[in-house]
């Protein structure tokens, strides 16, 4: 098998005559213009326009834009077979169908299917509430595992490891807004970031040890920010996005039996011949120097994209009220009890306003004007960024949070996972089932 790396979790695996493209994100500026690849794809000569369309299968792990942005997907034929994991709700499948794809095939977690030519694929679903999945591709005793950024169960990872993996692509970096978007004092933040980065690298080491591939590639996870006002997010002391070279060093330091391998965009791994470097040497140089240069080059495009952002809806406030009243009102008492939050929005921009969603209110009115003094979670965000979410133009709330163009606070300083689940996918039946299952656990 031949595996070509295209950044983040994107791999093109050629097994015999079959080409499987995993998690294609072949544009720049995902999540409201914030996310760029570790190296801008064009620096390795990769552009969406010239990317081959003749793949046989797409595997999409989940709905995050750095794994399947809509612009990239539209590059491929509408009848291209798309493999996804069968998640508890049909939201992802419906999203893909909404983009026009007619051949979406859902696989149960752990289900192994034959694609022809002796090529087998197994998809593994996450243990978490969020939708995510990983893929194992096998042919003639060779095995390629792409974890994407999916958190699999210990038993699944153990089972995958027992099969004997030739090359594994692993998540190695944080990819969310904690703690970096929170309002911690500077010295507290530095310590939290340090611990978070250590925890992420420790986790990588453990997962590589458990799956024990011959070759381990740090792949999915990190965001590269090229907006000059947000470059601090790339800072090793202030940000949780880890340089892949540091992940390689962590694997070496831990003496894992696997060979840690740094792959840059367009590099190839061949199950017979091993690693074949194809990326320009400039993509293997010092990261901070590269980032400064890339930020300068991308500045005009970033400014133009920002200027072209549509304004907030004229009736933003009415939409926000209706959106949250409907969604909170649809939840069971059990779920509202678990969430038990007062979620405040401080909205800036041309249509400013302050609102609090009170999950403990009796309903049907859960949205109150103003920031309640006993708010538990507060988000300060521009009107134009929250607008598409509350109007229904954008289905995924995380697209807003992953833009890192907001600030937030929480009281008490604890992760309210039920609130996060609600914002992630507020499907009433799914949420109720999840928390009914957990009801043996006291809140």
């Amino acid at each position, binding site marked *: 098998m031949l595996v070509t790396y295209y950044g983040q979790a994107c791999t093109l695996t050629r097994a015999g005559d079959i080409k499987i493209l995993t998690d294609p994100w072949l544009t720049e500026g995902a999540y409201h213009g914030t996310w760029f690849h570790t190296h801008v794809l064009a620096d390795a000569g990769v552009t969406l326009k010239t990317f081959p369309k003749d793949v046989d299968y797409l595997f999409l792990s989940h709905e995050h834009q750095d794994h399947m942005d809509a612009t990239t997907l539209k590059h491929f034929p509408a009848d291209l077979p798309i493999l996804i994991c069968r998640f508890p709700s049909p939201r992802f499948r419906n999203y893909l169908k909404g983009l026009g794809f007619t051949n979406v095939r859902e696989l149960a977690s752990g289900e192994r299917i034959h694609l022809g030519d002796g090529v087998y694929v197994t998809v593994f679903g996450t*243990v978490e509430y969020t939708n995510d999945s990983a893929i194992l591709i096998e042919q003639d005793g060779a095995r390629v595992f792409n974890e994407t950024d999916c*958190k699999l*169960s*210990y038993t699944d990872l153990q089972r995958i490891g027992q099969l004997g993996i030739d090359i594994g692509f692993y998540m190695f970096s944080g990819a969310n807004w904690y703690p970096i978007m929170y309002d911690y004092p500077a010295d507290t933040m530095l310590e939290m970031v340090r611990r978070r980065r250590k925890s992420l690298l420790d*986790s990588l080491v*453990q997962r590589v040890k458990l799956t024990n591939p011959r070759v381990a590639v740090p792949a999915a996870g990190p965001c590269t920010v090229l907006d000059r006002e947000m470059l601090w997010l790339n800072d090793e002391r202030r940000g949780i996005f880890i340089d892949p070279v540091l992940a390689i060093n962590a694997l070496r330091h831990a003496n894992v039996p696997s060979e840690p391998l740094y792959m840059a965009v367009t590099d190839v791994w061949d199950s017979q011949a091993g690693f074949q470097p194809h990326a320009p040497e400039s993509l293997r140089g010092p990261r901070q120097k590269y980032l400064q240069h890339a930020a300068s080059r991308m500045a005009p495009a970033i400014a133009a994209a920002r200027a072209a952002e549509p304004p907030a809806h004229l009736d933003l406030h009415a939409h926000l009220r209706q959106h949250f009243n409907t969604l909170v009102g649809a939840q069971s008492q059990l779920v509202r009890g678990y969430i038990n939050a007062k979620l405040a929005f401080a909205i800036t921009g041309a249509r400013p306003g302050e609102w609090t969603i009170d999950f403990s209110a009796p309903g049907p009115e859960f949205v109150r004007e103003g920031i309640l003094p006993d708010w538990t979670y507060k988000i300060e965000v521009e009107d134009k960024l929250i607008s598409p979410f509350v109007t229904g133009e954008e289905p995924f709330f995380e697209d807003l949070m992953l833009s890192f163009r907001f600030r937030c606070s929480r009281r008490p300083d*604890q992760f309210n*996972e039920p609130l996060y689940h609600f914002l992630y996918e507020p499907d009433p039946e799914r949420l109720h089932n999840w928390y009914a299952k957990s009801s043996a656990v006291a*809140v």
Partner: protein
Amino acid sequence: MQNLQLSLSELRAGSLLQFEHAGTKLVVLRSKDRVFAFHDRCPHAFWPLSQGTLRNTVLECAGHGWEFDLETGRCLSAPVYCLTPVAVTVDGDTVRLQWPD
């Protein structure tokens, strides 16, 4: 109920050990002055807690770094997650563990 008896001298302060009894895996942890025991399974992604690290009375899971307060069994950052406790009594050098079938 299931019962398991250990010797306190088997448990070094700051250590965490896995024991298996009647098909159940347990993690037994000894802090400076207490012995704790739980089912050896993180409630997040089911990693064996016995692979984690102990810092005073906080257990960090090796899988994804989730931290648990041994006094309450709750996850520090997400209290909705809780370890499954095992009752512990210490009598001289004898540590008795008891948990439901």
